[in-house]
């Protein structure tokens, strides 16, 4: 049995394989047929098909030479707008291979660029319009400056419906010879929140345990994505068991491979569900923000999280008085 990452193995390769986003798919299909596309802006939450459709467009336009005609860039990873510009320039300088008169530049997470960087990007887009089309993707289109928005055809992606997720998972289950109970399928959708990548990753993790998948397994895997230990650690600190809390926090971070930033995000989300007076919650959230900032500034993540737990410990004690 060949194992790889299922999100790649089962990534739709044609418009007809895409689940959900029906209108968007229909429009893009027409555009692609005409072999002429404008600059595109895909906006929407993760796991809703933005990258998948961009790849399909490239495959359909360039057939087996799609790789040479597509430049994939990621705004959050590239070191600033200058490297992006250099890469775009190098790529767009040469003529496209084949009958389509332009190449495609896919810029993922474009909303990670600052406004200044986006201005620079706008000029780059204009300079290379004759030889390249941009497909920008982002979570929120409001974070993209208007001059760029106005140069693009905008498509808004929505979280996938229950039907779409189920259909997609059922297809994979069949190919992988998995037995999925209805409850498990239901649970997978719940956990995924309409994010197909998350649904597939959860399914693959479940399948590593057993080919018969029930809802318990699904929730067990989900615990890895949102460890409930974090909540327990917070309760321990508030309860005055600081040393235990500190130890559990470190082992939780290591067990799940949670970075300091991710851990602090989880803490922040959990605070709202704690049984505390609202004024205390606000105070804690302010403190959490301060420690998140310290980590972002490059401080040691374990130490910062421990120090944050000490603050929980302090507040817990003051509440008891």
């Amino acid at each position, binding site marked *: 049995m060949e194992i790889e990452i299922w999100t790649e193995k089962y990534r739709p390769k044609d418009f007809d394989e895409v689940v959900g986003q029906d209108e968007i798919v229909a429009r893009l299909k027409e555009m692609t047929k005409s072999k002429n596309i404008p600059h595109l802006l895909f906006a929407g939450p993760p796991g809703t098909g933005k990258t998948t459709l961009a790849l399909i467009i490239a495959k359909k336009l360039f057939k087996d030479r799609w790789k040479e005609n597509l430049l994939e860039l990621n705004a959050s990873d590239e070191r600033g707008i200058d490297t992006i510009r250099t890469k775009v320039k190098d790529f767009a300088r040469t003529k496209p291979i084949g009958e389509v008169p332009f190449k495609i530049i896919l810029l993922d997470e474009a909303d990670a660029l600052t406004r200044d960087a986006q201005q620079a990007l706008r000029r780059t887009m204009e300079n290379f319009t004759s030889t390249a089309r941009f497909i920008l993707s982002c979570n929120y289109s409001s974070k993209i400056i208007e001059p760029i928005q106005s140069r693009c055809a905008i498509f808004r992606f929505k979280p996938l419906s229950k039907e779409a997720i189920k259909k997609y998972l059922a297809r994979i289950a069949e190919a992988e010879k998995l037995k999925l109970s209805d409850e498990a399928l239901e649970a997978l959708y719940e956990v995924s929140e309409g994010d197909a990548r998350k649904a597939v990753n959860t399914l693959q993790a479940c399948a*590593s*345990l057993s080919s018969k998948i029930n809802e318990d397994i699904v929730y067990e895997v989900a615990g890895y994505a949102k460890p409930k230990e974090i909540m327990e650690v917070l309760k321990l600190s508030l309860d005055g068991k600081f040393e235990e809390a500190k130890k559990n926090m470190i082992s939780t971070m290591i067990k799940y491979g949670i970075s300091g930033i991710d851990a602090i995000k989880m803490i922040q989300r959990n605070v709202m569900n704690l049984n505390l007076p609202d004024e205390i919650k606000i105070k804690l959230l302010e403190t959490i923000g301060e420690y998140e900032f310290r980590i972002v500034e490059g401080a040691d993540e374990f*130490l910062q999280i421990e120090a944050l737990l000490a603050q929980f410990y302090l507040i817990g004690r003051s509440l008891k008085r």
Partner: protein
Amino acid sequence: MSFAIKHAPKSLREFGDQETAVKKAVDFIKNFKRMKRKALLFYGPPGTGKTCLAKILAREFGLELVELNASDKRDAAQIRRILGNAILQRSLSHRGKLILIDEVDGIHGIEDRGGVGEIIKLIQETPYPIILTANNPYDPKLRSLREYVELVEFKKIGKRDLRKILLRICRLENIEIDEKALDLIIEFANGDARSAINDLELASFGRKLIKEEDLLLNYRDREKNIFEALGMIFKGKGIRRALLALENLDREISEVILWIAENIPREYEKPEEIALAYDYLSKADLFLARAVRTQYYRLEVYANILVTAGVNLAKKEEYKKFTAYRSPEKIARMWETTQFRRTLRSISDKISEKCHTSSENSYKYYGFMLKFIFKHNKKWGNAIASYLGLNDEEIKFLSY
């Protein structure tokens, strides 16, 4: 002549402390002929009287002192040349001899090749008593030597004795010293009489009255260990002593931070104290990060201050208890943060390459799935590892 030499005790009567050691040594010289082992190894921290006692013994028993110390080259040939002759030649005055080999733990492994072996030979042949000194008798270099010598321990000089010694010198030198300054010298000396006397001498230059502020810069350059540093930081109130905790310490400040974090809840008992001490540590750590990022390393000064004085001041009262300090949790040390972060980063890069996601977000999307599989299904884990091209470090991270 320095105070330490000028006022060194000249007789056993003046040599007050270290009763057990004195008794053992006198017994050894008196009954040398009947001794099974022909050498003593005086060991203990610096400034506790090891060399001094050897010299007094020579004087009191009328022995000629033959000395070989660390400034001499001490390979086998050299030791034989200097001491071998001493052993073979009868003393001119028909006096006996006492052979002193100072600081044997300072014998250099390579440069002084064969040094320790040669000393063992001398011990087996000698008609005269031999005294060796060392700070650490359990130094691996001395392992073979240990069965040929009798160990004699020298303890740190107690505070009361140090006080006596210092006051005696003050009297003889016509110096006045205020009580606080005296305490401070004794505190810093940490059982080392020589350094206490040197501190006194340094502070006395051009003064007849020594006050507290005359001392501050004069404390000794002695290597501290981490436990002493922790004691200086946690114990006592008042930041002056705490501020010196990191000086001459053989650890990086980032490591000291880990040690302090581990021991805050052991030392401090009130949540306010623990939270405040942690907050200072956290800010110190932030300054370190900024120093690295801006390449402006002066910022480390502030980290240093927060780690020492800040943590010291976080307590509301002094804890007189004895605290057994522990080394930082194994689990945290296993994943030194930089290592943790680096591995997380490299895994993210590899996922990003295969899965059309940013490195920034790829672990968020795929991490839980990979962790789960690596934990529960080795076979799949291995297959995925080869698909992503993961190295051993990354596999270990995911399987942990």
